[in-house]
């Protein structure tokens, strides 16, 4: 599903080159639930941006669902993000002043696909938000906003779900709720999920933990 080969990423800050990733080899198979852990500065955000096709690596090869995305143009990357990746962000990132339903329809609009309302309604139902779908983000709790964001991530039926600190802004009860939802999606729908977190408690929901330090993978294990 995801194959990273010798991925490096170097940022240029003025005249200084800052290596963020220094040769990452990682394979994530279909239906896996992987947590990528690491302290801040370990390169996990950079890795997530590359896996999420928001950024391209400086060198190396990245195969997503069989496609080499390392050298694609901006618009081609936008298409990949739209069709193959569902994002869940720490700060929910719903579009303000727009109902949950319309937020969930948004990826379908950019995909140019039909029966949007029906599909968005189904996606919201799947995350247990059917009764709040006409509410705006400000009228929803943090947990509800994150559910709406998960519905938006799933509505295009993407190959992978990429969750970047999805519980970072939530209280512990909502956090557990969201993680259970993700785990359920992984088990029942066989969704491939890549979770980025720095919390051990959260990482425990995943079935495989990859730890990064200074741009390299230092641990890759499946907890018992």
């Amino acid at each position: 599903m995801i194959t990273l080969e010798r991925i490096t990423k170097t940022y240029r800050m003025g005249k200084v080159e800052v290596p963020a990733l220094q040769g990452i080899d990682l394979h994530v198979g279909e239906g896996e639930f992987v947590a990528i852990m690491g302290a801040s500065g370990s390169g996990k955000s950079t890795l997530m941006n590359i896996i999420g096709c928001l950024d391209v690596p400086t060198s190396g090869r990245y195969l997503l669902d069989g496609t080499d995305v390392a050298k694609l143009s901006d618009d081609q990357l936008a298409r990949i993000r739209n069709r193959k990746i569902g994002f869940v962000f720490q700060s929910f990132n719903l579009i303000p002043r727009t109902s949950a339903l319309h937020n969930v329809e948004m990826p379908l609009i950019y995909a140019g696909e039909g029966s949007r309302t029906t599909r968005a309604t189904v996606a919201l139902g799947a995350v247990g938000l059917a009764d709040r779908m006409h509410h705006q983000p400000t009228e929803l709790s943090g947990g509800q906003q994150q559910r709406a964001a998960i519905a938006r991530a799933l509505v295009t039926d993407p190959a992978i779900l990429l969750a970047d600190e999805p519980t970072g802004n939530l209280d512990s009860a909502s956090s557990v709720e969201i993680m259970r939802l993700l785990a359920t999606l992984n088990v029942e729908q066989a969704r491939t999920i890549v979770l980025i977190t720095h919390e051990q408690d959260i990482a425990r929901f995943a079935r495989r933990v990859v730890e990064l330090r200074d741009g390299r993978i230092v641990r890759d294990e499946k907890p018992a």
Partner: protein
Amino acid sequence: MNLFEALRMAANGLLANRLRSSLTMLGILIGVTAVILLVAVGNGASVQINAQIQSLGANVIYVYPSNAKGTAGVSQGFATGQSLTQADVDAINAQSAPDVVAAIPIAQSGGQITYGSQNYFAPTTGTTTAFPQVRDYQLAEGSFFTDDDVNSRHRVVVLGQTVVDNLFGSTDPIGQTIKISRQSFRVIGVFASKGGTGFGSQDNVVVAPITTVWAYLTGARGKVISQIVASATSAATVTQAETEITTILLDRHGISDPNQADFQLQSQQDILTQATSIATALTLVLGAIAGISLVVGGIGIMNIMLVTVTERTREIGIRKAIGARRRDILVQFLIEAMVLSGLGGALGIAVGTLLAHEAPSVPAIASSSFPTPVVSPSSVLLAFFVSVAIGLFFGIYPANRAARLHPIEALRYE
């Protein structure tokens, strides 16, 4: 992404900041209102001028003596020559010009007019019996003079309404005797008012037989014809009639080269063309001045769109993350700018049209000779498309800036 979705997004974006959107729209609204209103005033002036000139008769042709080159090559200047004669008039009338209804000689004389203790000044026109027909005057009272009056140099006059009002007040002028340059004349008729204003009123006239004017008023200058006025059979035949008159006069004056002609023709059509071009220039200048405010409105849109793009950087990042391409973002913000300007333009058209419509009922305007504004459909269409185009033009830079944002940086933007 289809147009409906794009419009819906634009509407959402604009409704999010109602006050700001309305104020930005106001800039365009005022600009378009100004364009519509000022162009309407220009059009109104043009219509007014046309109506006045048409009231002089659309098929009238004037023949003036012109800067005839004498044998010594001395140019005598416009209307100073004495090249036109009664024989010329007779020749034009003698059926050799099929498109000319009639031609009349005109001899002008100024002079103080008195009736009792009333004084008035009006030009006295000496002419022949075809004058009412050629110049399209109707008689309100009495009658016009006859061929007998012309042949016998009878001292009779026909007055225009303005002259009657100034000299007689409520007295019936028919049969009264007035004095022009201390000579006595009997009033035999009064013209119906032609209602024209400006350009020398058509009602401020005193008409007498040309022979009488020569005998009693022009004095030592002799039998001068200052112009010949001819009427063509219709406005459409004016050009043919002009050609016929030119041919007759060139032949009679023995001139073979038309450039050496000792007379000049001018038709109402020529005057109309000149006046129209002046009115058009006026409309253009007014429109251009108003157009400046439209440009200012456009800059307002650009300013607000730049602010909007900066404020919504994060939203743009989200949209890009979930699959919006550059083009989608570009179209979204362009349409937002065009909706702003188009809506402002449409409202401006409504307000401008309303003001143009209501202007004549404002007492200060109604009592002046200010032209009634005429809103032309073409200026409405033009104003609308120009305002949308302004949204497009001034929206491109901010929209392009939004489209070029890097998704990661946009998502991190606080």
